């Protein structure tokens, strides 16, 4: 929408009435661009997120755990597809977005740049990373852009299996041998702060971190409903009692219930680390992209074969007709 005040007024009338914007509606160019950026980043996170867990499929400790993990990783691919399809309604192509991922011009969630060192990490990812993702995503089911909101409804339904299977896998370890319990504790120690960082930088200046640049505008547009810090607090409040059930210790000596606030006080993640990982300096950034690019290239012959077969059948049908 380049501009007429009337179109802009119609757009904000829908936003202010908590209505939904649909693909063919007029929308400010900045709104469209911001959505493409966010949805693409979200889609990329889903498919890059297949890698840390995929790492354990061949080494899952039982057939049951292997089947569950396969189903979960398959779900992540599906989530990627829902989101790429939502982005495409905004006039970009999936190939163009994948190309931007492969050439590092678009980002994905920094959490997936950490390695999965033990089987317990698979449990910790389901419990913490998917738990944090659900906390982030539930408000997005009411986001102002219809196709994105609808994709999030499907995704949230499926994520709850992901979180529960992770919790159950960790529970099996914490009820197992001392070595297994130590493995679960070690996974929690490594994944806790990166999970807190998933909510993005803090809302206000402080601790040397930058202000979350997109929050304010996204809230005006009805894309974001709660600030990063509000969502992070919600996640901490939900998760701490779950750690008690597991019999694990949060790796935060300052974590305690604050009666006055009605919330847990906790130590924030190291923001310098978050920005370093976002900017390419995480333990696995290069490996994740390399693997994605090679998987894409190695799949080329399958896509070519499917196209060739479709073309051949089409010729055959036309010949018969």
């Amino acid at each position, binding site marked *: 929408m380049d501009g007429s005040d009337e179109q802009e007024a119609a757009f904000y009338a829908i936003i202010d009435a908590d209505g939904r914007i649909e693909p063919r509606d007029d929308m400010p160019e900045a709104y469209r661009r911001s959505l493409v950026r966010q949805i693409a980043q979200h889609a990329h996170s889903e498919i890059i997120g297949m890698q840390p867990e995929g790492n354990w499929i061949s080494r899952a400790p039982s057939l049951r755990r292997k089947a569950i993990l396969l189903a979960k990783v398959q779900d992540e691919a599906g989530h990627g597809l829902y989101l790429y*399809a939502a982005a495409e309604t905004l006039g970009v192509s*999936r190939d163009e977005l994948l190309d931007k991922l492969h050439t590092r011009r678009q980002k994905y969630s920094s959490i997936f740049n950490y390695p999965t060192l033990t089987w317990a990490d698979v449990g910790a990812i389901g419990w913490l990373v998917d738990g944090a993702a659900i906390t982030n995503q539930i408000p997005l089911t009411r986001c102002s852009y219809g196709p994105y909101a609808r994709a999030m409804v499907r995704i949230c339904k499926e994520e709850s299996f992901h979180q529960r299977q992770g919790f159950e896998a960790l529970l099996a370890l914490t009820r197992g041998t001392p070595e297994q319990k130590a493995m679960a504790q070690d996974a929690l120690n490594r994944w806790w702060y990166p999970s807190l960082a998933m909510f993005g930088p803090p809302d206000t200046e402080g601790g040397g971190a930058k202000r979350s640049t997109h929050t304010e505008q996204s809230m005006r547009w009805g894309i974001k409903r709660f600030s990063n810090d509000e969502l992070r607090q919600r996640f901490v409040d939900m998760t701490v009692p779950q750690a008690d059930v597991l019999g694990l210790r949060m790796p935060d000596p300052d974590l305690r219930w604050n009666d006055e606030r009605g919330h847990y006080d906790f130590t924030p993640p190291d923001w310098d680390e978050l920005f370093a990982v976002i900017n390419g300096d995480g333990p696995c950034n290069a490996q994740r992209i390399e693997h994605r690019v090679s998987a894409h290239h190695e799949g080329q012959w399958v896509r070519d074969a499917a196209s060739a077969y479709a073309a051949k059948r089409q010729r055959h049908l036309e010949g018969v007709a």
Partner: protein
Amino acid sequence: MSGMWPLWEVFIRARRGMSHIHVGSLHAPDAEMALRHARDVYTRRGEGVSIWVVPSSQITASSPDEKDAFFDPAADKIYRHPTFYDVPADAPHL
């Protein structure tokens, strides 16, 4: 190459007795592959008993710009609604 695969809209009948409802879209080289992809992507948890796939390019849509004018004929015919009619409260089964 996948960029050249056309886009398909996917409709799913959740249970017998219900209509097919639009659930999303996907890319596929032909109708048969579109059906298989739709099964894999949209019915992993028993969400459907029947799938339709339609090339997105085959859908003709009303224009959002003209929606007021286009749907105007319905706006002033309130006598199409049963609540338009005053009937005595004691008339049964109306």
